[in-house]
C-alpha cells in the first residue's frame, strides 16, 4: 500500500470502512494514479485508467442528457463494487469494495476525501 503524503489521510478514512479493499486518487484527465492504498492483488494502474475513461464517458453522457455532471457512481459487481466521486480538481476518488459493504458510509467518506483534495 502506498499513498503520497497529504493525500494519505484522505484515503485512510476510506480504507478504514469495513469491506473497503482499497482507495485511490486518480488524475481524471490522464487516468494515472496520484495516491493509492490498495490490498494486494488489485491492479491500481488498470483500475485508475479504466475508471478515468469511464468517468469521461459518463460525464459526456450526462452532459448530453442535460442532467449535469456526475457526483457519485456506484458499479455493483457480483464480487464487489467500484465507487467513485469526482473531486473539483479533476481528480477522482475511487474505492474498491466487497459486495456487502456499507455503501452509504463509503460514499460519505469519498465525498469527504473529494472535498479534502479539492
Amino acid at each position, binding site marked *: 500500500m502506498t499513498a503520497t503524503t497529504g493525500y494519505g489521510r484522505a484515503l485512510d478514512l476510506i480504507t478504514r470502512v469495513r469491506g473497503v479493499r482499497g482507495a485511490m486518487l*486518480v*488524475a481524471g*484527465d*490522464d*487516468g*494515472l494514479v496520484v495516491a493509492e492504498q490498495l490490498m494486494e492483488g488489485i491492479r491500481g*494502474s*488498470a483500475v*485508475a*485508467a*479504466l475508471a*478515468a*475513461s469511464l468517468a*469521461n464517458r459518463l460525464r459526456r453522457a450526462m452532459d448530453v442528457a442535460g442532467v449535469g455532471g456526475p457526483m457519485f457512481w456506484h458499479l455493483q459487481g457480483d464480487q464487489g463494487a467500484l465507487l467513485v466521486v469526482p473531486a473539483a480538481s479533476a481528480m477522482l476518488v475511487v474505492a474498491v469494495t466487497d459486495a456487502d459493504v456499507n455503501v452509504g458510509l463509503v460514499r460519505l467518506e469519498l465525498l469527504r476525501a473529494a472535498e479534502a483534495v479539492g
Partner: protein
Amino acid sequence: MTARAVESWTLEPMNVFVHEAQVRLVLLMTPAGQVLAQSGFSRAVDVMSAAALGAAIMASTAEIAKQLRQPPFAALNHQGERHGIFLGGFTTGRGPVVALVVYDLDVSSLGLVQLFFEQFAEELRAASPKAPVPKQVLAADFERELTDSLNTLFGR
C-alpha cells in the same frame, strides 16, 4: 482505420491495441527507423517522417540516459492540448522494437495507453519470430527495401 504490416506477426497485436486503447495512430518500427507496421496513417510521407523522428527521439533519449548512467528510458509521453504522443520501446524475439502512438485526449488517456501498451508488448513478444534475421544492409538495397515497405504499408 487502416492497419498494414510489413511483418505480419505484428498486425493482430497492433489491431487489438488500437481497439483497446482507442488510439489514433500507431507506428511500429525498429530503433533504426525501419517500419514494421502502421495503423491510421494515410500518407507514406507521414510514416517516413514519423519513423525517422521517432527513431531519432529514442536515440537521443537513450544517449541522455547513458550520460546519466541510467538504463534507457522505457517510454516517453508528450501531452499537447488535444493529442498525446507516446513513444515506448521493448524487446521481442525479432529484436528491439519501438512503438510510436498518437492518441486523442478526449477519447483516450495516458493511463489507458500505458495499460494496454504493456499487453501489446507482451502479445508482440509472444507472436514474434524467435530469432532476429541477421541481415547485411547495403546502401544499394536500402532504397528498394524502403519502397517495398511503403508499398506494403499503403497497399500499392
